[in-house]
């Protein structure tokens, strides 16, 4: 891979990230409401508010606050949470793992299931199976994710008792490391499947389109003519090429996964940044909100970059300038 190209793509990230930070910061400044009240509680006296206001520098001018934030952000210091009095980055970091686990699992599950569904749909393109797969995956996409989550919770967790109803671990976790791992998987399964269900449609559709196209190419016809088995043709020859688009959209999907995770975390009591964000919204905890914004948008941008660069390794037809 060309180092100059990578460097140029990296440089292109900076204005995007700067733009996002600016948008979030302006929004926070324009909004009515005063974070001091989140910080100092509901019934303090005026003197007490003045004291806390000074302590957290809320009376500085807007450019000063923005400049302070930007220079701190570069050093990895996103300021101190108004409500918790701890560094925002520390707090976000504590929740990040849970969200990454949830979103990552959903990404893997939806990609695998989506590719399988897409392959089936492509092989029986125009048939009943194709239509069934399209209908089911598109319906899962069309249904609000919280709704699917609630139905899954009521049915699989409450009625059937297959999964725990909330959280990431049991109140009384098993003693062994392996037991704890299984415990975690057990808690992860339902929220990850729900979050993944939304994404299957886009993956299976891309796979199907790419594969249908591939299967009609001369390259594949030649392979068939050589007498190779159809499954070999599909899996060995056509799929590898057809998968390119599936990987290029992973970057875009990261954004949707984070969005979906906010909602899924709330349905399933999953302790990630989505829930942190919602409580920060309720208290207008600026540093936390700005931090999460910065993080989510950076994740999207970086994921775009990685998929961009990785595309070439999946589909050798892509050549870098």
């Amino acid at each position: 891979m060309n180092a100059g190209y990578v460097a140029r793509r990296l440089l292109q990230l900076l204005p995007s990230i700067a733009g996002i930070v600016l948008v979030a910061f302006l929004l926070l400044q324009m909004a009515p409401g005063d974070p001091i009240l989140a910080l100092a509680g509901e019934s303090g006296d005026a003197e007490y508010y003045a004291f806390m206001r000074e302590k957290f520098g809320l009376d500085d001018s807007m450019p000063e606050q923005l400049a302070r934030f930007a220079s701190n952000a570069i050093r990895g210091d996103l300021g101190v949470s108004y409500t918790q009095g701890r560094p925002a980055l520390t707090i976000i970091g504590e929740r990040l793992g849970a969200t990454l686990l949830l979103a990552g699992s959903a990404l893997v599950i939806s990609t695998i299931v989506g590719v399988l569904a897409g392959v089936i749909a492509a092989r029986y393109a125009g048939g009943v199976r194709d239509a069934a797969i399209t209908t089911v995956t598109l319906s899962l996409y069309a249904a609000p994710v919280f709704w699917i989550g609630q139905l899954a919770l009521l049915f699989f967790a409450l009625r059937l008792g297959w999964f725990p109803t909330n959280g990431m671990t049991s109140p009384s976790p098993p003693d062994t490391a392996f037991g704890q791992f299984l415990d975690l998987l057990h808690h992860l399964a339902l929220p990850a499947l729900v979050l993944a269900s939304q994404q299957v449609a886009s993956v299976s559709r891309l796979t199907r389109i790419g594969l249908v196209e591939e299967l009609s190419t001369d390259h594949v016809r030649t392979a068939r003519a050589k007498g190779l088995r159809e499954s070999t043709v599909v899996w060995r020859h056509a799929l590898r090429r057809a998968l390119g688009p599936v990987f290029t959209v992973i970057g875009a999907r990261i954004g949707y996964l984070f969005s979906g995770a906010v909602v899924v975390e709330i349905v399933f009591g999953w302790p990630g940044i989505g829930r942190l964000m919602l409580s920060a919204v309720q208290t207008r905890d600026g540093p936390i909100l700005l931090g999460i914004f910065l993080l989510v948008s950076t994740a999207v941008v970086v994921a775009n970059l990685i998929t961009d660069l990785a595309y070439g390794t999946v589909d050798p037809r892509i050549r870098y300038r």
Partner: protein
Amino acid sequence: MILGRSESRHQATTLIGRLFATTSGKVGAIVTLIVLLVAIFADVLAPYDPLSPIGPSLSPPTREHLMGTDALGRDLLSGVIHGARTSMVIALSVGAVAMVIGVLVGGISGYAGGRLDDILMRFTEIVQVLPRFFLAILAVAFFGPGLLTLILVLGLTSWVILARVIRAEVLSLRAREFVDSALTQGARGSRVLFREILPNAIPVGIIYLALLLAFIILIEASLGFLGLGDPNAISWGFLAGQAQQFLRVAWWLSVFPGLAITATVLGLNLLGDGLTDALGRR
């Protein structure tokens, strides 16, 4: 498939025929049409005032109240019907804002080229990575739940793809002779934009618009779930959010708004598919 002006009317009539030739196009168009009609005639169709507590509290579906009532005793069917209107108003307004900005940015960018094009495209990249759902949460929580806030935030961030499409059309048309000749004949830039370029970009714009509407309806629903819906305008998201606390005792409050959202989003997506097929854009 780039068509000249004389062909566009013909294109419009055959497009509908081709749309209805596919199952997904047929289903999508019908569902979308139904939802639009319900939204337009909500006042006539709704059996009751959706905001008036006229019935018993938490009644399951009965002949009187086909979708049951909520805790305050309001008729859910009327709520779902009026919700269609609110959800469509939000979605279509966002679509309109996005269309206007997308056409302006894409048109100027493709037409002007050079540095301005560079700057606008860089700006587009920034807007593209803005996490829209997160922005919407922030905006609604800060400025209070209001339709206008939601429309502005989503509209101002949803035009990127339209701008790209328009820009690509402009670039490809600029390269074509007949535009060049139109230009040399002294036609004004805006006239070329509206007469020659937009008609060709609009079909793709409509596909994107159908998918955008679906996306906006889902976002609105999720905001409602998070308790960030506007109580002054009954929307599907608001109904779904209200159903939260009644999950175990009043299934109808969650099921009917959920089904309405799912059906509409599905319909819009199928319509998008159908249009894609009909235009041979796949």
